[in-house]
């Protein structure tokens, strides 16, 4: 059996620290909203603001990484195997059918992942970062020449984004169990490699053919 390296060290570090930060941001954020009490309000506010800055720094590094390594290409949406992927999740998976798309280093994402992660990166994260910054600097917006009449619009968008992230997280964790074995994807995301399955086609082979 051949080992295929899928995730570089930075990729894994970025993924897990982002996961950790987003989960903590969700917990502290919902505490600030008043949904529950875990950390204590003052600490929740402090953590939320601090972790947000850490996440933004991480995102800056990740953007740099995506650009310099060309990894961003892996998120270009494609229609290739899209239908097959949907069909696989709706029926094939129950019949023990083989995964329609094979992973490889330069095309580690299936077309559904590409869509989902692209949406995550260019939609949800920017919305959360923007509304989060506006929320934090709300008392200073006056001096910047813009004074929205109320904070609630910003807050509502930020909260809806948070619910979106929560939903994403649940779906993401569940779909990660649909690998060769329920845990193989988790192992791959920790170790960086997984066992290769040369029989299935890849997204890139379809695109180039």
């Amino acid at each position, binding site marked *: 059996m051949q080992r295929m390296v899928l995730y570089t060290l930075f990729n894994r570090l970025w993924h*897990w620290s982002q996961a950790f930060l987003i989960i903590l941001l969700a917990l502290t954020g919902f505490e600030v909203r008043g949904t529950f009490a875990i950390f204590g309000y003052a600490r929740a506010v402090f953590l939320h603001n601090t972790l947000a800055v850490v996440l933004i720094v991480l995102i800056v590094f990740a953007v740099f990484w995506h650009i310099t390594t060309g990894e961003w290409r892996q998120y270009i949406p494609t229609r290739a195997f899209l239908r097959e992927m949907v069909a696989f999740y709706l029926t094939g998976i129950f019949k023990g059918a083989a995964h329609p798309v094979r992973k490889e280093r330069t095309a580690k994402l299936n077309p559904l992942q590409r869509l989902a992660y692209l949406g995550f990166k260019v939609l949800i994260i920017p919305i959360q970062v923007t509304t989060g910054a506006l929320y934090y600097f709300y008392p200073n917006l006056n001096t910047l020449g813009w004074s929205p009449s109320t904070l609630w619009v910003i807050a*509502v968008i930020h909260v809806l984004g948070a*619910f979106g992230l929560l939903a994403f997280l649940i*779906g993401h964790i569940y779909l990660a169990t649909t690998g060769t074995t329920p845990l193989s994807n988790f192992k791959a995301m920790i170790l960086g490699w997984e066992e290769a399955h040369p029989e299935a086609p890849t997204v890139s082979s379809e695109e180039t053919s």
Partner: protein
Amino acid sequence: MSRLHRTGSFWRIIALLGLAMGLPALAQSVGQKATSPHRSASPYAKVHAEAARRSTADHSQFKILKGPFKEGDGSAVTKACLTCHPKAAEQVMGSSHWTWNPKDKHLAGYGKSTHLVNNFCISAQGGNQAACARCHAGYGMTDRHFDFSKSENIDCLVCHDTTGDYEKIAGGFPNPAVPLDEIAQKVGRSTLQNCGVCHFFGGGADATKHGDLDDTILKATPAMDVHMSKQGAAMVCTDCHVSNAHEVSGPNYVIPADKREKAHFPGESMSRMACTACHTDSPHASTVLNRHYRKVACQTCHIPEYARGGLASNLSWDWSTAGKLKDGRPYKEEDANGFETYNTIHGDMVWAKKVKPSYIWYNGNLKFTLLTDTLPTQRPVELNPAEGSYADSAAKIWPFKFHTGKQPFDPVLNRLVAPYTAGPKGSGAFWGDYNWDTAIKTGMEKAGLPYSGKYDFVSTTMLWPITHMVAPAKDSLSCKDCHDQNGRLAGVEGFYLPGRDRGWGIDFLGWTLVGLVAAATLTHGILRYLFAGRS
């Protein structure tokens, strides 16, 4: 890449994750430290001792102060004082402690010698000057025709007695039993007690009116008043209410919402009534806490409750039930707490200790009602409504004592009235004859104001800013006291408050989305499991 290397990176990730997990623990060390301008205990005890040491005069050695003074002859003492302090007379006579009318133009008319009206004792002007004059820095005020130009009528001792034995009676005269020569030889700087003999007893009795000022302050623990407690900062009133040529700085009814006091040149005499004068406007370690100052007064968080000293403050005064007699005699009723719930001379009253203030947007404008003002149609009548809103950049959320009352008014002229209350039987005073009709008629006559002859009672409300009885930092409000759906700011409108404002619609939408995804994945997972078992 060797196997060893890969395992290495795996452990590296675990280690990094562990480090990240440590962040919350790190955050625990970040508290809400409030900085105190003073590190040592009771710093002002030292300041006051230093001031005394620097003094060049010893009043006990001055012959003129040895008297002897005739019993109750305060004016003789005043004349003696003025021989060495000739300019003091002019200074005092220009001050509001003498004129009972603020100096500031925009506040003129707000004083006991004016037509200002409240819902405690109502007004001094209804012929009650003699009784009220126990708190006038003068001798002989018995009616509205008091001569404000006679310097010998100044009462120096009420503010400068250091023995605590000085006492005033009706008309503002010294109690004849007071040993004037002894007191005169021991005059000095004003202490808590000098200010307290009047300001603790507003509304006619200890703790009644203000709520944040009563004579428990004299023996307060730091928990009751961190500034004035002897074990706290050991400050006296004049450390903040600095006097300038006998004009003691004070808000004169209308407390500034956001006062900035900063010396413009070294040695400038200035008041330090604003918290920021000593504490700056960013005294917290946390930026987020400091930013609250834009919209929240310091007092809001740092005075969690007023009347914390053990005495109850009056929350409601219903004059309309006053005058009831039992077997032809006036009577009192007390509740289980020993609070006077009824008194023939006052009517029904409500008292409470350790009261949570009311929180209101306030920009520094309290508009008071005068006896000459026509009442608005709104009921209850707000006697001193606070101006301000979230949109008002000068306004902050301020704590107030909310006082309700029911008091007589003239339904024909639609004005409040000043009844003659404090007087003997047969004088027409309410406390002598228990007759509203004659009490109001006499009062309005003495005040020189018109009265239609008809009276009724009207519900009124008043706001009393809470600014004393500051608690130690550890006892200040916590975030959740306000950032909560049922928090203290539940009724303060006009803005979105995180933790308080949580629209059910957004939660419904969000949780539905999360629930749908969770249900879909669960169903999918169960199906996978079932089919896997079959194949």
